């Protein structure tokens, strides 16, 4: 079994990339593969708790986050410098890494896929 990192970097609302990256993570977990997530760039907006997109704006991917632990996806990394100070409206299930840890993280996996 290989350990895999899914790196989400696209906005959940500007393309399907974020959704299809999460789909791959869920399928890997369903097949009992070790998988972690990391978020950067526009994908960080998935962490906002106060979003309610209309149908034409796309699926509310934020809702998937609470379910990740049931798939044994427990590590969702972000960069410390990108921590949102508005903790009231930010999902708190992430682990913040400093710059060195973030850069080192990518070497910890046999496979990294970017979406």
């Amino acid at each position, binding site marked *: 079994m290989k350990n895999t990192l899914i790196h989400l970097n696209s906005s959940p609302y500007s393309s*399907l*990339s974020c959704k*299809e990256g999460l*789909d*791959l993570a869920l*399928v890997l977990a369903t097949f009992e*593969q070790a998988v972690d997530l990391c978020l950067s760039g526009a994908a960080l907006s998935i962490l906002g708790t106060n979003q309610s997109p209309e149908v034409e704006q796309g699926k509310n991917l934020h809702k998937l986050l609470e379910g990740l632990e049931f798939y044994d996806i427990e590590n969702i990394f972000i960069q410390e410098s990108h921590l949102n100070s508005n903790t009231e409206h930010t999902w708190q299930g992430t682990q913040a890494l400093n710059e060195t840890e973030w850069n080192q993280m990518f070497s910890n996996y046999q496979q990294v896929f970017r979406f």
Partner: protein
Amino acid sequence: MQYTLLITGSPYQSKACHTALRFMQAALKRYPDCIKGVFFYEDAVLIGNKLNQPPRDEIHLTKAWQNIAKKYDISLYLCIAAAVRRGIISEDESRRYELNQHSLAEQFQLEGLGTLVELMNTTNKIIQFR
């Protein structure tokens, strides 16, 4: 060493499908058994549309992929969920969705992401083109 290729970039918005094809050609020329399979995901599944007609003075990318797959007997998989949502429909799926048409090009097949997981676990490396 055997590779799996994961291609996620659109054939129209990126050069992912072109670059992967060039990689395949170079790799297979040297090591004819080095590619176990190719999995197309996200907008890359558009490569499997048999109806696309590029201008005659441009590369017909779908045909180029069909030719290399045939020559080296390599499976070309399209993620079924990504393909069906984009109108790449096999004969089987057209019956399931009660449609009169199908659009999946020959040499390509629709498979679930489970097939990608299997490829990951049975090849040494997976290379993403995006």
